[in-house]
């Protein structure tokens, strides 16, 4: 029964019971997400290497760029980000609603269906069965499995929300509830198969942008709004501004997708409305940036010691960068240069990896020890993960941005033959692959550490592992 309590501290027994109710489903989502992270990373690194060595692995149709690349994209978004996000949401919802997770059996079935969908979809993609629409390549059979898994997951989360014992909805929960409503609407409409021709292109980019903005982004922001103040131990800088940020986010963000079709055969007003909405995103982004950065900056001594905050703050800073970049990128002046170039790939990676994935890493570094009741055994692995992943994505973003801009300038210059827009990117493509491999190495280190903590292998620690004390393991 819902009380009138805003949400003051309660006893340890209640919290432990709530955490226990979320532990097994969250672990299932986290473990499977980590598997897809590794597979997706390897597929991505292989796809990038094919830019440098076009004949590499070209004898097998299964391993051609046209199959590996969508397999990378879909396993990362629907496998890694979505499933890790689901694990984080299960755990956070129990805490924010101050109640135990309801309809837990649905979550196990959900994880089974969701993983089956990603597995089936990836196999079908590699076998050559693709819908041919970016971010929607999985055939309908796989998409339906994912949708069914998501609906069961959402049902359990809404039931848990309905059983909450606190009256106030914390800002992270607003983002979670919105994402739970938006994603199924988006995914089912996009997969309905009602569209062809120009309308199909419009729907494709409405979906492709929104799967990032109204699914992946709310997950990341929900995590940042929870873990930054939680680990620091102080409330966010301005709670009221945070709520303004959420509602303006809800108002403007889903209009953004059609800026991908600047210059396309669409009504000008539709594209213009999308560009205006993209610029209006400065309002919620400023609200989020103010809250996250001011909270972290005021307590920077805590940030330097916490593995969770290293990743989450990196992700929060990346959100500001990718959002500001995205607003400018949506304008016709910038689009006419960078469209159809590697610049867009850099932007997408900044959003999915530097922002969302880094926050999910941070969330898992916080949640996993509480789920398995075992501290991370090797703090040095956390450091190695952070530096390889962080340096990898910064390198990747920098070279795709510069290389993509030069590529775009060459493409629109009538005095430059088309091949000139290809050759100008070659050095940048080698560095892009180096960045991708670094990220993959970081992800593998993370996966190894996740396996070790689940199996409780390695030195036992009596307390959480601040990064500054790396190497101070307590013998088991």
């Amino acid at each position, binding site marked *: 029964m819902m009380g009138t309590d805003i949400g003051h501290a309660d006893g340890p027994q209640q*919290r432990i019971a709530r955490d226990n109710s979320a532990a097994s489903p969250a672990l299932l989502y986290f473990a499977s997400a980590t598997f897809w992270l590794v597979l997706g990373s390897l597929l991505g690194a292989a796809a990038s290497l094919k830019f440098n060595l076009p004949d590499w692995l070209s004898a097998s149709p299964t391993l051609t760029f046209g199959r590996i690349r969508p397999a990378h994209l879909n396993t990362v978004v629907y496998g890694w980000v979505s499933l890790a996000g689901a694990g984080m949401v299960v755990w956070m919802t129990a805490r924010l609603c101050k109640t135990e997770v309801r309809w837990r059996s649905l979550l196990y079935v959900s994880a089974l269906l969701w993983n089956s969908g990603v597995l089936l979809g990836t196999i079908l993609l590699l076998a050559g069965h693709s819908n041919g629409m970016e971010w929607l390549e999985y055939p309908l059979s796989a998409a339906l499995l994912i949708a069914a898994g998501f609906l069961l997951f959402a049902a359990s989360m809404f039931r848990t929300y309905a059983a909450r014992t606190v009256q106030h909805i914390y800002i992270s929960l607003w983002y979670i509830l919105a994402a739970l409503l938006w994603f199924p609407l988006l995914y089912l409409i996009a997969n309905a198969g009602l569209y062809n021709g120009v309308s199909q292109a419009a729907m494709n980019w409405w979906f492709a942008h929104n799967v990032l903005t109204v699914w992946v982004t709310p997950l990341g922001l929900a995590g940042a709004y929870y873990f930054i103040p939680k680990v620091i131990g102080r*409330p*966010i800088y301005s709670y009221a501004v*945070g709520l303004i940020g959420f509602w303006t986010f809800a108002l403007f963000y889903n209009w953004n997708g059609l800026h991908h079709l600047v210059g396309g055969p669409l009504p000008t007003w539709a594209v213009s409305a999308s560009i205006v909405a993209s610029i209006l995103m400065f309002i919620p982004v400023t609200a989020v940036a103010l809250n996250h950065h001011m909270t972290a900056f005021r307590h920077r001594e805590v940030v330097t010691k916490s593995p969770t905050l290293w990743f989450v703050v990196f992700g929060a800073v990346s959100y500001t960068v990718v959002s500001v970049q995205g607003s400018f990128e949506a304008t016709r002046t910038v689009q006419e240069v960078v469209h159809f170039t590697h610049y867009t790939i850099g932007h997408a990676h900044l959003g999915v990896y530097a922002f969302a994935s880094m926050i999910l890493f941070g969330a898992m570094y916080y949640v996993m020890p509480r789920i398995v009741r075992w501290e991370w055994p090797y703090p040095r692995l956390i450091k190695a993960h952070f530096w390889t992943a962080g340096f990898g994505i910064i390198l990747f973003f920098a070279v795709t941005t510069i290389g993509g801009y030069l590529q775009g300038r060459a493409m629109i210059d009538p005095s430059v033959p088309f091949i000139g827009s290809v050759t100008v990117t070659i050095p940048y493509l080698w560095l892009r692959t180096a960045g991708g491999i670094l990220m993959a190495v970081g992800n593998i280190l993370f996966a190894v550490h996740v396996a070790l903590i689940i199996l409780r292998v390695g030195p036992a620690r009596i*307390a959480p592992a601040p990064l500054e004390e790396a190497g101070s393991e307590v013998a088991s």
Partner: protein
Amino acid sequence: MDLTGIAVSVGIVALIGAALALAAFLWAVRTGQFSHEQLRAGGSMIFDDEDQSGRKA
């Protein structure tokens, strides 16, 4: 489905979505989610005994 049919169907979905968002916002206002007291105390609702025990990272 032709372009008009798609525009109508997407328009209906958009209106339903907008109505849901408006309903959620009005519900939040009516139930005091944005009251002065809740805005003041809401940011602290995530803290519990675990934070008091000093276990953070």
